[in-house]
């Protein structure tokens, strides 16, 4: 965390943004939007952790008498406040169960892709030459294969499950990190201190892990936070297309898919999970935008595609 403090201090453009005039916490509390987003995400994470233990049974209990029970009524207790789905399960509790799946997928898919992309990016950027070329080409190939094909293949061979959705999303998002990590590594390895380390006889492994990796890490971390929103949306698209999960597992995309046929007669079945997806993705985006701004206002990772070109343009 020390590195962060240094970084935010080292930024010397006073007029660039309002949050730099104050300490971190003040920055945080000063924006009601950021606070709300953080609270919402925290709430979802809590629900995700607790829901399976507390409500799994009731969430999955079908009761055809409660089929399409209308929302905002108290007749069946608080759990039916958002209504009942097509099998008479309480939508509120289904959303809670879905929170767990969605969070697990988001966290692990981002974790896997960022870790692999980070590692490969460092290696590719550091060694350059044919290693770099080959790895970049593989990244391009991964990037070009339709993820829907990859999903169908993986799920055909391995059967649908949360774990396999994580694998599919994890693989397809690797190139994002790989390219970013590589671009930064290429730049950093030319710096003097790397040269010094090299001339002092440090091994490649040592230079990569001790000298370069720590400097690339913050970018990857910010990117990963940004990607959480992306992955939540991507995962829900897959499950919406009916690829990936298997009842009784449920996530929000699957709930929208289940409700889509009843949109006209029971709008709430598809609308509530959609709203939850929007709120969660939005909170994650707001937080990541904020984090990015706090950590390094000059760096905008959306430009990662052409770092050199950008430099030439803005100076």
């Amino acid at each position: 965390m020390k590195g962060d403090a240094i970084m935010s201090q080292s930024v010397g453009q006073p007029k660039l943004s309002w949050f730099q005039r104050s300490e971190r916490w003040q920055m945080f509390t000063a924006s009601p939007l950021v606070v709300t987003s953080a609270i919402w995400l925290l709430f979802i994470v809590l629900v995700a952790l607790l829901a399976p233990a507390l409500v799994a049974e009731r969430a999955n209990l079908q009761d055809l008498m409660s089929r399409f029970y209308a929302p905002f009524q108290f007749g069946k207790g608080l759990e039916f406040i958002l209504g009942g789905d097509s099998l008479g399960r309480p939508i509120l509790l289904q959303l809670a169960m879905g929170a767990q799946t969605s969070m697990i997928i988001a966290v692990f898919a981002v974790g896997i892709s960022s870790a692999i992309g980070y590692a490969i990016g460092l290696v590719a950027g550091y060694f350059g030459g044919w290693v770099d070329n080959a790895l970049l080409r593989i990244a391009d190939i991964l990037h070009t294969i339709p993820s829907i094909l990859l999903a169908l293949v993986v799920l055909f061979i391995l059967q649908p499950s949360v774990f396999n959705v994580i694998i599919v999303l994890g693989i397809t998002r690797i190139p994002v990190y790989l390219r970013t990590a590589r671009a930064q590594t290429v730049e950093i390895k030319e710096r003097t201190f790397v040269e010094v380390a090299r001339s002092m006889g440090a091994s490649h492994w040592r230079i990569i892990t001790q000298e370069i990796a720590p400097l690339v890490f913050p970018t990857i971390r910010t990117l990963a936070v940004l990607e959480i929103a992306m992955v939540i949306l991507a995962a829900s698209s897959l499950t919406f297309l009916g690829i990936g999960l298997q009842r009784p597992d449920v996530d929000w995309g699957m709930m929208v898919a289940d409700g889509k046929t009843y949109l006209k007669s029971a709008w709430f079945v598809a609308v509530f999970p959609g709203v939850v997806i929007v709120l969660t993705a939005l909170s994650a985006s707001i937080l990541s935008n904020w984090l990015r701004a706090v950590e390094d206002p000059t760096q905008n990772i959306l430009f990662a595609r052409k770092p050199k070109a950008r430099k030439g343009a803005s100076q």
Partner: protein
Amino acid sequence: MLAFIRGRLLSGLLTVFGVVVLVFFLARLTGSPIDLFFPEGATPAQLDSFSRAYGLDRPLIEQFWVFLSNAVRGDFGMSVWQQRPALQAALSEMPATLLLTLIAMTVSVVIAVILGTVAAAFRFRLVDRVITIVTLITGSIPAFWFALVSILIFAIVYRLVPTSGAGNWQSWILPVATVSLGPIGVLTQVTRGAMIEVLSSGFVRNARARGFGSTRILYRHALRNAALPIIAVAGDIAASMVNGAVIVSVVFAFPGIGKAIIGAVLARDFPVLQACIVVVGVAVILLNLIIDLIYVVVDPRVRLS
């Protein structure tokens, strides 16, 4: 310049080759097309007859060799289900995809540049906040959900547009809106960020000091300099749109290569799948090349490396 283009094309083709090899084997891991369209009661002899006719009974390596040697000559084989050459099946989907991409990108870039510039000009004031929040929201709406809800509201309840298809110009409204939703959010943020960066950089302050009007500065100098990151991101988005737009085709029954790919995967129409991948791959390479060239046009200081 020519060497650069040749290099990019070569490395692009290498990628496409890799993708096709991978797709060839990946797709065949998901079973054979013969299982799909025969009724459950079909006898093994009947299935064999079909698989012989399409060369699916031969060893995988042999099938691959046959595919490669024909593909080099531009022959991707016959579609298993469509009774026409696979390449033709893939190419016939491209006009709709390219047109949708073109329209959606134009719409998103125009809206995003306006919103982003306004936000940057009024940075940290209310307008900026509102624009930022609204675009963050549009970027957080799942496309499939937006598509479903918009069909219900605009097509079925209010009957302003058709529910689906690509018949007349009205039927393009919802698909364009659906695919533009995310890009508008991202591009507005990029524009805003780039404009702020440019506006706070030295030369704009110099220009201001020399007495140029602020509107002129914004449009003449700043926007031109902010164009590079916008083009970079827009290019990436356009490339993924050419490749994807699956949701739009599923929900709106909208034609396009995304639909052809998912259809070919589900129907195990391997020749069409392979042809689609090649067509998309080539389109993406060309698109990226065009973007690189636009870079040079917009800002001659950019070196082609």
